């Protein structure tokens, strides 16, 4: 069984975003990372591949993005992925990303596709679902656990008031979130060496037009300074929360 990971590359999540003179997010000198959820998805896929009790034998990365993302893709390869495919495009919205991924998957057999719930830059929460919809294949979302059982999967899905364990057949697209793996895996020395030898397949994109456009960006207005209360008088803070901001009720 092959697992394909839809991987997004995003600005380091601890970076403060500034806007350029044209009012666009300033991406100069920003360190790029593997989107945190995709990193967890990849980690889980590798755990499954290494577990002799199941039939996963290949983990493939699929990325839509420019060549400048190559370094991050290499790091993901160093974690242990077998193959990487990069579709040479700079998508303007999640529909364009999904379009390129669908074009690739239509030409090729696949079993399990994993997507992260969102990317930490544009927070679209879209690509996984759009791909499943466009391919009209079975999908499951809010996934926090995956186990194989012969040619089926056991999937743990978070619901808004609990969790369910589901049995689902392949092929399947699963949208995963926190919990799918405990900690992202660190690339080993050996992994880094191997990754240098592995090939990244680059594919030319088809033509597509976005369905949305970013019209304008704006930084949130600065917050007024924090109202400090003396540590000897916690009652005063309760007073303020009750009477000034009216968010608690004590009487």
């Amino acid at each position, binding site marked *: 069984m092959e697992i394909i990971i839809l991987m997004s590359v995003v600005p380091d999540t601890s970076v403060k975003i500034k806007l350029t003179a044209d009012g666009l997010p300033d991406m100069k000198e920003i360190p790029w990372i593997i989107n945190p959820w995709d990193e967890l998805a990849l980690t889980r896929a590798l755990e499954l591949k290494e577990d002799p009790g199941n039939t996963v034998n290949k983990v493939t990365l699929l990325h839509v993005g420019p060549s400048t993302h190559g370094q991050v893709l290499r790091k993901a390869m160093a974690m242990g992925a077998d193959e990487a495919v990069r579709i040479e495009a700079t998508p303007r919205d999640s529909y364009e990303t*999904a379009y390129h991924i669908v074009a690739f998957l239509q030409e090729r057999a696949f079993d399990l596709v994993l997507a992260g719930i969102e990317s930490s830059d544009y927070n679209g929460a879209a690509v996984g679902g759009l791909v499943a919809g466009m391919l009209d294949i079975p999908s499951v979302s809010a996934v926090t656990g995956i186990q194989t059982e012969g040619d089926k999967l056991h999937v743990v899905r978070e619901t808004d008031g609990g969790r369910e364990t589901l049995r689902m057949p392949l092929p399947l697209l699963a949208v995963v979130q926190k919990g799918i793996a405990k900690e992202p895996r660190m690339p080993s020395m050996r992994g880094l060496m191997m990754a240098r030898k592995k090939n990244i397949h680059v594919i030319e994109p088809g033509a597509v037009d976005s369905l949305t456009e970013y019209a304008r960006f704006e930084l949130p207005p600065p917050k007024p300074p924090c109202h400090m209360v003396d540590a000897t008088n916690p009652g005063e803070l309760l007073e303020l929360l009750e009477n000034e901001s009216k968010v608690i009720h004590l009487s």
Partner: protein
Amino acid sequence: MSILIFAENRNGKFPRHVPELVTYGRQLADQFRVQAIVLAPGRMDHPELAALGKYGAHRVLSVPDQSLDVMDNRMYSDVILEIAGEEDAEILLFAYSNAGKALAPLVAAHLQAAYVSAITGLPAGTDPFVVRKKVFSGKVFTDIFVKTRKKVFTLAPHSLEASEHYDPVTPEIRHVKVHENRNVTERMEIKSQEGKLLLTEADIVISGGRGMQHPDNFKLLEELAALLGGATACTRPVSDEGWRPAEEHAGQTGKIIAPDLYFAFGISGAIQHLAGVSSSKVIAAVNTDPEAPIFEVADYGIVGDALDILPKMIEEIKRRKHV
């Protein structure tokens, strides 16, 4: 044309975000002078359905099919698409919940509609159609121009206050042909957090970080939460260490919440943590370090030891409430 609102069924009841979503749908429908129609899948009592009229639903369509008890993504999206076709829905609204995030993009793909998730308010303009949302995990706001006639959105939690201005309506029962062969989801087990106030629905959230020092000290947070009628949350290291259950982890990689009050004890205020809580109406923080970044986003703060301040606060509340 109409606006179609997807109202989730949680064990025969509507979750708390549904009234917000219906209120929003009605306001949008009024802008276009069209109907706001609610689609409620699964079995549900008549009064529960009728009550959505109060929030502005012109019509409530119930699809009480037993096969919808377990959510299969494709079967659900088939049902939504069928109703959307019959009702000529131009805008489809979902909650920014697990189910909404699962279904909205599927439906958008089939309709070839533009999809924007977690929009934060009414459109800034309708010609051209422009919606607002936060990007970079809350660090930047953006206006998005939506180019297609059909549109699918999820609404960010607490984007507006639910309001009951209208009268209940008589729900209509719809029978949609459910294609069982499209359903591949077999449920083996279910665990629900019955009786517990859900973190994503709480108005007050009392949260602890590594500064709480020890798992036992979280009893203080639980006590404060119980007294104020709130839920408890924590930071990622706290849940990673197993001090608290994983479902309490708030932040970019955990739950995104927006309560009226977020009360942070011993939390440094790392950017990834703030990504999950910065939409709270009021943030209060207790931290020993006056330089802790949490104070840059907090409305109220105390520089001090949480383990010393919590018991005092609890005492004070008990005194005020005479318990």
